[in-house]
C-alpha cells in the first residue's frame, strides 16, 4: 500500500524576490502572491467559517494584513505558511463572532477513544467517486467535513487538503506536534466513518445510494 504524497508548496527564490519587492511597496509584486495563493486561502477560510460571506471577508482581510505586516515576515518560515497562519486566525475570529453562544477554540476538548478500532469495516467500492456525480460528491464531502469539530476540521484541511507538514500545521495553529497528530488521526478516522455510509460496498451490487 503506497503512502500519501503531500503537495508541497515550496518557496522559490522567485517568490522571495516578490516578497522583497512587495515589502518595498510594489503592489504588482504583491498581486502575484495573491494570485498564487488566493484559492488556498479561500478554501481554508470557507472550511473554517462554513460561510461564504465570511470566507470572502477573510480572504480580503488576510491578504491586507499580510501586506501591511510584510516586514514581520523574516523568511524563517515559508511565505505560504506565514500567510495561512494569518488567514486561520482571521477565520477563527469570524467564527467566534458568529457562534457567540459556543466557544470556538483550537483547544476544545473532544474526547474520543484514541486506540479503539473502528467497528464498521465494510470495504468501499473500488471507485467510490464514480457512484456519484461531481456536484453530489462535493456536497457529500462538504456536509461530511462540516460535522467535525472545528479543531479537527482545521487540522485536517491544513495537513491533508492544503499539504502543510505536521510541523507547519502545529506552528500555524499554535499546537504541539503530538496534539496535531492526535487530532489528525481522529479527524481522518471520523471522516472515514462518516463517508462509509455513502461509499461502502452494497451487498446486492449496484450503485444506488442507501438511506
Amino acid at each position: 500500500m503506497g503512502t500519501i504524497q503531500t503537495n508541497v508548496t515550496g518557496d522559490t527564490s522567485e517568490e522571495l524576490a516578490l516578497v522583497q519587492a512587495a515589502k518595498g511597496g510594489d503592489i504588482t509584486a504583491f498581486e502575484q502572491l495573491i494570485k498564487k495563493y488566493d484559492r488556498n486561502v479561500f478554501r481554508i477560510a470557507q472550511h473554517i467559517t462554513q460561510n461564504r460571506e465570511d470566507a470572502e471577508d477573510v480572504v480580503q482581510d488576510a491578504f491586507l494584513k499580510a501586506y501591511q505586516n510584510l516586514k514581520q515576515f523574516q523568511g524563517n518560515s515559508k511565505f505560504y505558511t506565514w500567510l495561512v497562519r494569518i488567514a486561520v486566525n482571521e477565520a477563527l475570529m469570524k467564527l467566534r463572532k458568529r457562534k457567540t453562544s459556543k466557544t470556538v477554540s483550537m483547544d476544545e476538548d473532544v474526547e474520543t477513544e484514541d486506540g479503539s478500532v473502528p467497528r464498521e469495516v465494510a470495504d468501499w467500492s473500488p471507485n467510490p467517486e464514480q457512484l456519484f456525480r461531481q456536484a453530489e460528491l462535493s456536497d457529500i464531502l462538504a456536509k461530511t467535513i462540516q460535522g467535525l469539530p472545528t479543531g479537527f476540521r482545521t487540522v485536517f484541511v491544513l495537513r491533508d487538503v492544503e499539504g502543510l507538514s505536521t510541523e507547519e500545521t502545529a506552528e500555524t495553529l499554535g499546537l504541539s506536534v503530538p496534539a496535531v497528530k492526535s487530532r489528525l488521526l481522529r479527524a481522518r478516522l471520523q471522516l472515514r466513518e462518516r463517508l462509509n455510509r455513502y461509499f461502502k460496498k452494497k451487498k446486492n451490487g449496484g450503485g444506488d445510494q442507501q438511506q
Partner: protein
Amino acid sequence: MKCSKFLTELNDFLDGSLDSKLKAELSEHLTWCHNCYVVCNTTKKTIEIYRENQVYELPDTLRTKLHDAIVAKCKASKPPNET
C-alpha cells in the same frame, strides 16, 4: 501487533514517516487482519478524495472581485516599509 497499536501508528504509516522496522510490522499485520486492512485502505481513500475533489473552489468572477478589492485596500494603506 495488536489492532489498537496498528491504529495509533496509522497516521505515520499513511504518511510514510515510519522507520522501516515498524513499517514492516504494520505491513505484516495487514496481511492477516482484514479489519485493519479495510480501515487503512478506506482512510487512505478518504484523504485522497478530499485532496482530489476540492470542495470549495473559488469561482473566477468572485476571484476577480476579491483581487480588485484587496489591491484597492493595499493601495489605500501605507506601504509595508513605512508602517
